[in-house]
């Protein structure tokens, strides 16, 4: 369905992508191939920021999320979560259009106006099969073929990439909610929205985040690969390609079949002592 839409509106996309060609060229390799390699030239700095964010989580965010979960009743928490989604409405609709997905833009506009009757507190549109689906400018750029670029960890905000960090800034300015009120009121609005989002996210994914933290050998590397894969899935909009989690992962699995066939021979030979520095 979505494919159809994309092909119909390919003209729009093509015209838009013409604008992006100069950026593309600047980024050297501009293709849609999924890059599962780490691409993490700033790893030492990223690890430091990751540690800082983790300390912040353990010291402030996690305890706040516990209190929030335990003392705020369920309906109010889901209301908060709904409002945060509703506030993203204009950004999502704009990105739907930029992605050439007019059908989704129409559905998301309906969703936005329907939920506006309760200022976003009640997600009535979800009952009419207009479910929340996040679209952001990072995804739009990804659809245009802009690679994610180096992985970066943002202080307070967590995992990102050069492309997605640029997307965040663009999304901020695209959203009319960021421009309402006096200049003095805007920063407190954005800051408090981000803080509430963080507490909401932490409480909604409480056990998963705790589990990830405690069961990892290298939590930083785990978060990095999950982020990469999740972003690719978001760009694909849940359409399941045959390789399921991107071209890169399918190659890994095909490669493994080849390798296990070779390996049978390797197993017969005594283990070599020379180090093999092949890396994926």
């Amino acid at each position: 369905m979505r494919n159809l839409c994309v092909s119909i509106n390919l003209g729009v996309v093509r015209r838009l992508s013409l604008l992006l060609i100069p950026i593309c060229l600047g980024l050297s390799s501009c293709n849609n191939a999924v890059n599962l390699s780490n691409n993490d030239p700033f790893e030492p700095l990223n690890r430091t920021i990751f540690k800082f964010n983790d300390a912040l989580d353990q010291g402030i965010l996690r305890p706040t999320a516990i209190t929030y979960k335990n003392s705020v009743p369920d309906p109010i928490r889901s209301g908060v979560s709904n409002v945060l989604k509703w506030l993203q409405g204009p950004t999502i609709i704009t990105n739907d259009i930029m992605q050439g997905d007019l059908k989704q833009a129409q559905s998301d506009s309906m969703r936005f106006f329907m939920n506006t009757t309760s200022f976003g507190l009640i997600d009535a549109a979800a009952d009419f099969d207009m479910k929340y689906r996040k679209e952001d400018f990072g995804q739009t750029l990804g659809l245009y073929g802009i690679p994610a670029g180096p992985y970066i960890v943002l202080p307070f905000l967590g995992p990102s990439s050069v492309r997605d960090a640029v997307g965040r800034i663009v999304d901020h300015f695209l959203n009319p909610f960021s421009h309402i009120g006096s200049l003095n009121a805007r920063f407190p609005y954005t800051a408090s929205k981000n803080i509430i989002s963080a507490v909401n996210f932490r409480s909604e994914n409480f056990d998963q985040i705790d589990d990830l933290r405690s069961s990892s050998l290298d939590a930083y590397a785990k978060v990095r690969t999950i982020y990469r894969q999740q972003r690719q899935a978001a760009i694909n909009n849940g359409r399941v390609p045959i390789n399921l989690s991107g071209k890169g992962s399918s190659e890994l699995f095909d490669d493994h079949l080849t390798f296990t066939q070779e390996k049978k021979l390797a197993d017969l030979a005594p283990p070599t002592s020379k180090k093999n520095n092949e890396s994926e």
Partner: protein
Amino acid sequence: MQSRLKLLVFFAILWLPLPAYSDNQSGVRAERFIDILSSEALKLATNTSLSSSDRRREIAKLLNQGFDMPWIARFVLGRNWRLANPQQRKEYLSLFQAMVEHTYSRQFTDYSGQKISVVGHKIGKRKYIFVLSRIYDPNQSNVNISVNWRLVPDGNSFKIVDVVIEGVSMGVTQRNEYASVLQRNGNSISALIKAMRQSLAKLEKRG
């Protein structure tokens, strides 16, 4: 002449749909495999009469029945498998297995009424078959998670070699994580095994 033509047509009809049919059939069989496995898992998750050690034993049984654990363990290590000597390989495999069992038995304890429904399949390149499913919660309409299973044929049945949750492959995730541990420790398999032992001890303490 005419009878020969008839024979030809007969064979053409007989032969043509066969490859498609058999492919389709293995896909349908793979779907049933996941269906049966998940209903057995559900039975286990809702059985409150089991003690925690019994439950872990049952989970281990189910995992070994449904998943090709040595295959997954080797995939996670990737080409670094070559760096390990036979003794390290043996220890790595058993640690890997124990860690997965602990992680999953915890998931089972946290179970709160979610259901899984198989929605289709895809036949992949090489010998992979994908079964597509969704996890939903009858009590919460906003829970709708896509879970896709990568299977390989195993005799008359199948074995799971990867689970992809909302686009995130468990195998690839663990592979990248282990690769990073190795890279940061000068490709030393014994350092990886040490880290796994510590992690397992933590999991065991948590219960």
